[in-house]
């Protein structure tokens, strides 16, 4: 799926940078972000919220998380 950002295994602040890049590219819609640490999960959620996006859900996936964010 094109709107998935795979940020697993990346150091800070790469997961947030990649999320922000995608947010700026698509402006609105849905994005799934894959991360592998709790720190990245918190940072990505915080960054998305600060850009006016909503965290729709966070699911465990493998040993990490899939974060769904959306903006109408």
């Amino acid at each position: 799926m094109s709107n998935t950002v795979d940020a697993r295994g990346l150091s800070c602040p790469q997961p947030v940078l990649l999320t922000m890049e995608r947010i700026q590219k698509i402006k609105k819609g849905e994005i799934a972000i894959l991360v592998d640490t709790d720190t990245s999960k918190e940072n990505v959620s915080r960054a998305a919220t600060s850009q006016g996006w909503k965290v729709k859900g966070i699911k465990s996936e493998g040993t990490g998380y899939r974060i769904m964010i959306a903006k109408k």
Partner: protein
Amino acid sequence: MLRKFFASRWGIIGTGAFIGVFAPLLQKWGNPGNMGICVACFERDIAGALGLHRADVVQYMRPEIIGFVLGAFIAAYLFKEFRSRAGSAPIVRFVLGAFAMIGALVFLGCPWRAMLRLAGGDGNAVFGILGLVGGIWVGTWFLKGDYNLGRSQETHTAVGWVLPIIMLGFLALILLFPQVEGQDKSGVLFYSIKGPGSLHAPLFIALGVGLAVGILAQRSRFCTMGAFRDLILFRQTHLFLGIVALVVVAFITNLILKQFHPGFINQPIAHTMSLWNFGGMVLAGLAFALAGGCPGRQLFLAGEGDGDAAVFVLGMIVGAGFAHNFGLASSPQGVGPHGIAAVIIGLVVCLLIGFTMRKKIA
């Protein structure tokens, strides 16, 4: 509930405030001036205790560092966050750790100590903090230009235990070979009988504070480099609130303890060569930014299973050996004989790393 609190604004402020109270208290209880906690200086003292350098004034197995790693390890297990991972260009992280240490020892302090020096009235710290911000700013420029060290991989649980076990080994060494009054060696460990290495809070108090800081900082993701980086890169103030809390609370605590002495001259373990206070921290700040965390954060990451952060820590300890063996570290008299050359070489190396390790991640 507790998890949410630590991820909140109050979690990070609380961690900064805790350090702001206990660092000046550790100084009161025996640690060196404006050095209640300094990750770089204390790792350097550990390098000295092990004999990796033989600067006889900076040799002590600092229990705070051991506590930081083990505290983060305990917190990561308690909150089910321990995850062994490694393999994101470890050799580069080692080199970044070594040069980060060399830069920090030209200034004479890590970012935590830069804040504590400021909160103790040492005006020279301002140049160090400006340098730190400058170095991080250069780092954000690389980050925006697709610099990254590649992905780490999930690995055997025991890989993440390596640095915590090394720290347990260090703890065993202090217990087996405690300091003998007036002696510079006990068993395999070196001790200082004068200078900052001879000044330390009682072992179990230092270890206890270290453990508490390790737990809090692992939970709240406290990072002094990230504080400036996120502010520059995203205009985000979350981590920044942590260091503001640290400076404000440490300042108040120093006032109460009568440890606030404003000025530039004769500040404890500091020199007045402003350009090199600045330059040393440009190097350190850039190295931290390229490695993704300040020295404290690297210890906490290593405690929660990040093998690459552990390599950065070992790079710092080895870098301290080079810094003192090669005359790169500063002293209250000023920069070491080869300190300036080392800062320039370090900057060239960091710039090469930043320019050559770029790849678009889809």
